[in-house]
């Protein structure tokens, strides 16, 4: 087992160097003549002093500690950690794209504009919306953009009393934060005993103050909201709009479309559904699509096509403005577009079909050992409850640590909140039956370990670089900076 190693600062030895500079070939001036005394640093810099090979070994060793979808199974629920084909990287690194400048004149960037335009057309077809902005940098950014569009729409009609956004308990976790950021009040909608939105409870709170309903379909329970048409009708009749959180789009591509379900605004997570790298902070992509009546409010610029020429359109007087510098994370869009083209329409449909098949297969293996609160066909993910194991002394968080010990990335734990001791598992379409079987077997082994010695499981992991971390201290008194002793 490899244990934590020293920081570069701690490895530093005074006088050791990893560089040699040529002698200065211009006259040397005293510092005082260049920088006024008041701006000069008075304390030491305390930069580490090391040789090149020490630095290289340090970072190379650290790089081997990464866990990613390229090293192992990563069933992190709601995150769609599917394999990211390397051809996507090749496309994004093509010199014509990689060496562009965002301020380059349009006529010299026609290829890039065409890609943005084509990407938008493909997303329109896939979702049933009328136009897209590709600017938002990730899902939550897309959500905020979407709510700002909805707000702008209501205000343009003089409809200023709509100050509430409805969110089901099974919604994606970022939705309530987005609602607050956009200045709205959250109204929570309970689920019925099937785990679906409680339609009667929804109808009871919808009124002229309802700005929108934010819905993730399928939900974070991995269940498809079968009554979506009735839900949409209830919201629309009250003058509200429907927002589709695309976190779980990987379950429905080619089978159904948010636009056909009645949604007015949609965001997609291209770093999830369209296989661009994520985890560790991005960059991601969260394009937002809208129906006709919301187009005037989209961020500028949009890409237009006229006589086979592509251009940026900044002429949207009612636009909510820019929500990202330039045109969003263009490199990520290239990767996602490459994925779309490599897969093709049939390929995308098969990806969703296989994602759902994999999830149902794994769910049926695991429900023999673990408690499955909503026992019905799932879509691309499902949620177990480790409540029985918790009573024995090791809960969802402990099972997650035990998985780390056995070389798997754990599922999402303690979310969604409607399932106590939740383990939210999303295998994705890119995993083989053998991998799913191995994971299920490991989960069974962990359950047996809990029966045998829950206390031991509750103190894991044992095989990782660091053992059980003090999460409380990390949250209350985080040490984020090295300081010289």
């Amino acid at each position: 087992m490899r244990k934590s190693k020293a920081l570069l600062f701690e490895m530093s030895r005074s006088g050791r160097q990893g560089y040699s500079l040529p002698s200065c070939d211009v006259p040397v001036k005293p510092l005082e003549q260049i920088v006024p005394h008041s701006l000069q640093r008075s304390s030491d810099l305390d930069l580490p002093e090391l040789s090149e090979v020490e630095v290289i070994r340090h970072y190379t060793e650290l790089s081997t500690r990464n866990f990613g979808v390229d090293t192992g199974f990563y069933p992190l629920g709601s995150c769609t950690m599917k394999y990211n084909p390397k051809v996507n990287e090749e496309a994004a690194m093509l010199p014509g794209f990689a060496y562009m400048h965002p301020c380059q004149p349009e006529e010299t960037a026609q290829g890039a504009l065409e890609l943005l335009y084509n990407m938008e057309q493909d997303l329109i077809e896939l979702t049933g919306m009328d136009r897209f902005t590709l600017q938002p940098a990730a899902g939550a950014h897309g959500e905020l953009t979407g709510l700002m569009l909805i707000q702008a729409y209501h205000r343009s009609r003089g409809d200023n009393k709509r100050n509430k956004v409805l969110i089901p308990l099974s919604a994606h976790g970022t939705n309530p934060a987005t609602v607050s950021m956009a200045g709205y009040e959250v109204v929570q909608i309970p689920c019925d005993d099937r785990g679906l939105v409680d339609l009667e409870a929804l109808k009871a709170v919808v009124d002229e103050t309802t700005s929108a309903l934010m819905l993730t379909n399928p939900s974070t329970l991995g269940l498809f909201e079968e009554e979506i048409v009735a839900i949409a009708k209830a919201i629309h009749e009250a003058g509200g709009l429907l927002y589709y959180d695309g976190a779980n789009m990987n379950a429905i591509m080619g089978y159904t479309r948010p636009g056909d379900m009645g949604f007015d605004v949609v965001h997609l997570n291209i770093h999830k559904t369209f296989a661009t790298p994520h985890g560790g902070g991005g960059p991601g992509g969260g394009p937002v699509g809208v129906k006709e009546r919301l187009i005037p409010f989209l961020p500028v610029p949009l890409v237009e096509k006229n006589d086979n020429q592509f251009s940026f359109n900044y002429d949207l007087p009612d636009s909510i403005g820019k929500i990202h510098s330039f045109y969003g994370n263009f490199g990520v869009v290239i990767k996602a577009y490459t994925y779309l083209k490599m897969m093709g329409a049939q390929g995308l449909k098969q990806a969703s079909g296989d994602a759902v098949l994999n999830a149902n297969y794994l769910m049926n293996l695991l429900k023999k050992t673990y408690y499955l609160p909503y026992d019905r066909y799932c879509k691309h993910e499902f949620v177990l409850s480790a409540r029985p194991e918790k009573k024995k002394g090791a809960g969802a968080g402990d099972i997650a640590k035990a998985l780390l010990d056995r070389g798997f990335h754990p599922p999402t734990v303690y979310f969604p909140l409607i399932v106590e001791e939740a383990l939210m598992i999303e295998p994705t379409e890119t995993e083989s039956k053998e991998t799913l079987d191995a994971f299920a077997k490991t989960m069974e082994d962990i359950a047996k370990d809990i029966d045998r010695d829950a206390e031991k499981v509750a103190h894991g992991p044992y095989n990782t670089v660091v053992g059980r971390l003090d999460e409380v201290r990390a949250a209350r008194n985080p040490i984020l900076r090295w300081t010289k002793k």
Partner: protein
Amino acid sequence: MDYKTIDGLKYTKKHEWVRLEGNAAVIGLCDYAQDKLGEIVFVELPDVGAEVLAGKSAAVIESVKAVADLYSPLSGTVTEINEELLDQPELINSDPYGEAWVYKMEISDESEMANLMDKAEYEKFIVEEEEK
């Protein structure tokens, strides 16, 4: 029963407790809630003078597992907040009914008290929750 309850307090289905003192009330989080949340790392308190509504969020409790709202059991005006919790949120874990009271309030609608449970009712409610 695994969870502590206290005689003389009133309780909500969201696991807040209320100690009535005439027209005033002290509000806190029940033992059951602190146990489910796990170690508390942060508490956001209402402002003194703030109007709170029964069933609406009045404070935010953050644990290593989750962020949860504390819903005001009654409507009224916040008169005092427990600033100790800002530095020592862990008091909610160690002494939920004592040192870790969250805020005090003046009640504006006494009829809302009818919605609260007494100790016996609350204990029965917890048992039902656990059996779900």
